[in-house]
């Protein structure tokens, strides 16, 4: 697959940008920070209406049969405007797990709803610092899940979750319905992500993959999500770089535009570099989706996108001075999002290890 976007892909980028800029505003996102269990419904309605939920899923199950590159473009735009809900990524990850590893019956049961957006999915692998635990505390016994999955993005709203659990002597990748699960909302710095701890107590579940292949399968799902998230992070970083640039072209001090001071302009030029490196890695990773080097490419995209967004959040606020730290200016929306996205799908420490393992031949 080419790393040059074709006309159709470019149209997806422009159209999604137009729609999101028209429908998402800072004023609607700010109150969500102080609410619990709420997300920006207009964003999610837009995603469903525009077919973004169906984009990268198979046509046979109501999808549009496009790929990671196209979903990445939507995620990039969602990152620019700040997506109002985590489902674009979480439902995609859940759907991909079912599509890749599920039975026909499981696909028929879940994929059409995930494609239309009527069903919301989550991926619940992480246990604290371990994005993919070596020995999960979650257990899978006789088709039932017990234990707690922590910090699940979208956990407060999801209908189903893909979990990575400890089965009888072997790991299991499984799908569980969340209807009877105890959800504990996490009061977080980015509440519209709907982070929750999910308490499973004999929750019925169906295995998707068992044995050593389960871990590889889980990592693949995580990598797919990481590439989507990396696009979103790059979009956020790009928006912040532009906001910093625009401010430096407006604000005057000591008789000149602050953008004329090298300490300011170099800071913004460095952001440009980080954004372009992240973008290039994202496009590269999306184009490698079904190749042996996908995990490596995903890790590189993830690392550079996290660095770009975190740095852009820090430096954009810094360029603004005092106004940058006000609630009203809303730059903290990006600051918060940069951090929440840095944790979702595994932190940088996790992806650094994944990357080096692949590079040095320590991972098969």
């Amino acid at each position, binding site marked *: 697959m*080419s*790393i*040059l976007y074709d006309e159709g892909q470019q149209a997806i980028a422009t159209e999604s940008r137009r729609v999101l800029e028209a429908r998402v505003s800072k004023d609607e996102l700010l109150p969500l920070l102080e609410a619990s269990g709420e997300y920006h419904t207009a964003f999610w309605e837009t995603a469903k209406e525009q077919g973004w939920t169906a984009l990268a899923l198979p046509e046979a199950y109501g999808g549009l049969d496009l790929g990671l590159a196209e979903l990445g473009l939507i995620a990039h735009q969602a990152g620019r405007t700040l997506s109002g809900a985590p489902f674009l990524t979480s439902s995609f990850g859940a759907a991909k797990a079912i599509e890749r590893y599920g039975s026909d019956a499981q696909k028929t049961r879940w994929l059409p709803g995930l494609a239309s957006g009527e069903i919301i999915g989550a991926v619940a692998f992480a246990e604290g610092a371990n994005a993919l635990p070596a020995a999960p505390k979650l257990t899978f016994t006789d088709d039932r899940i017990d234990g707690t999955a922590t910090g699940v993005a979208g956990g407060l709203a999801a209908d189903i979750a893909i979990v990575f659990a400890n089965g009888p002597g072997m790991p299991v990748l499984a799908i569980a319905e969340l209807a009877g699960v105890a959800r504990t909302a996490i009061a977080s710095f980015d509440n519209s992500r709907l982070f929750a701890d999910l308490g499973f107590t004999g929750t019925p579940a169906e295995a998707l993959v068992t044995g050593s292949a389960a871990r590889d399968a889980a990592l693949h799902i995580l990598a797919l999500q990481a590439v989507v998230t990396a696009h979103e992070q790059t979009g956020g970083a790009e928006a912040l770089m532009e906001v910093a*640039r625009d401010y*430096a*072209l407006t604000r005057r001090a000591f008789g*000149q*535009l602050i*953008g*004329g*001071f*090298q300490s300011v*302009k*170099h800071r*913004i*030029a*460095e952001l*440009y*570099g980080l954004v*372009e*490196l*992240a973008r*290039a*890695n994202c*496009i*590269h990773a999306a184009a490698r989706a079904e190749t042996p080097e996908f995990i490596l*490419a995903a*890790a*590189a*995209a993830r*690392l*550079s996108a996290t*660095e770009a967004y975190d740095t852009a959040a820090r430096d954009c606020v810094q360029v603004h001075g005092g106004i940058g730290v006000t609630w009203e200016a809303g730059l903290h929306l990006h600051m918060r999002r940069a951090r929440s996205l840095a944790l979702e799908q595994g932190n940088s420490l996790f*992806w*650094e*290890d994944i*990357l*080096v393992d692949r*590079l*040095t031949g320590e991972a098969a």
Partner: protein
Amino acid sequence: MSDLDAYRSKAAAWLESVRPTFGKCARKGLSEADDLALGRRYQKAKFDAGYAGINWPTEYGGQGLTHLEKVTFEAEEMKHGFPNAYFGISLGMPVPILMQFGEDKDFVRERVLKALQGEEIWCQLFSEPAGGSDLAGLRTRAETDGNGWKLNGQKVWTSWAQYSDYGVIVARTDPNVPKHKGLTYFWVDMKAPGVTVRPIKLAGGDSHVNEVFFDDVKIGDDHRMSPVGGGFAVAMATLMIERYVATDSGGFGPHLDLFIDLAKATDFGGKPAIEDSRIRQQIARNYAMRSGLDAITARAMLMMQAGMTPGPEGSLNKLVSVRSRQKLSELAIDLQGSSGFAYDAHGFVKDNWTNSWINAPTGRIAGGADEMLLNTIAEKILGLPQDHRPDKGVPFNQIPA
């Protein structure tokens, strides 16, 4: 296989076939004179095999192909440590500019053919003690002298001037107008009376750059390559040719694989250093950065193949890769601890971390210092304002020294 892939594999096969004769093993222990002689033979071999002047017109002895083939060849070529550095500037800028702006076509053709075959070398006389990044601040004077001109002044950082037969030079012909407007572009015979070349020994111990002094050096008006006062535009055209050169996400230093090999081989506290998280983190960070640059380059190549103009992000390559190489080279030396002191001034920067480290600052300064590259990104790409420039619009001779 695309045509370009086919070209690449054919070039790679040819380079492999001449590696025993001209590669870094063949160069080991040679004096610089012998190495230059080997380099001239290598350049002739390239010419005979059709790999010299790849994107130059056939009427000048080139191959008439595009910069895609040129960049593809260069990317393969740089893996082997061939003695081609002597011709890098010559064929990179002055000779293409001569083809573009030289008036006497027979003379131009003769020079180009000799340069392509390694018989003659050209240098580029731009930087001066008072003007490096600020090129237009240069002070070397060209004054009318009969029907021609007389050059007086000093250039500096001139690569390979000590071996050069000719050079292109920007000189000030009118100090009474603002600095960019009083410059004129010439070519000059480096063997002419009054030209003195003095090599500068650099930090790493080698001397590829020089000071060049001009004392009443007389040149005819037929040496002039720009309108009088129009030299800055030709100088900018010279620097623009640089856009289409092979990049190296390793910053022209060692490949990351060599760092991994070193980390695997190094015992640190009873374990291979590759197991140390701090080392792993640097590997991961460098890989992510390099893969991003590689993807930018790959995309630029695809765009050129499709007849499109690559995006401005290609300008990140040198900035990002060379300073990363500098830090990674420091870490590689650190990693060796008490085994890390050894140094061979003639080591190859692409496989020796110490040579890579000691020569990295040159890379961060030559051809645009980091700070200038950041200014360019900020101003040309992002539209941020120029710094305050007190010399703007002021006649050159009224700028406070």
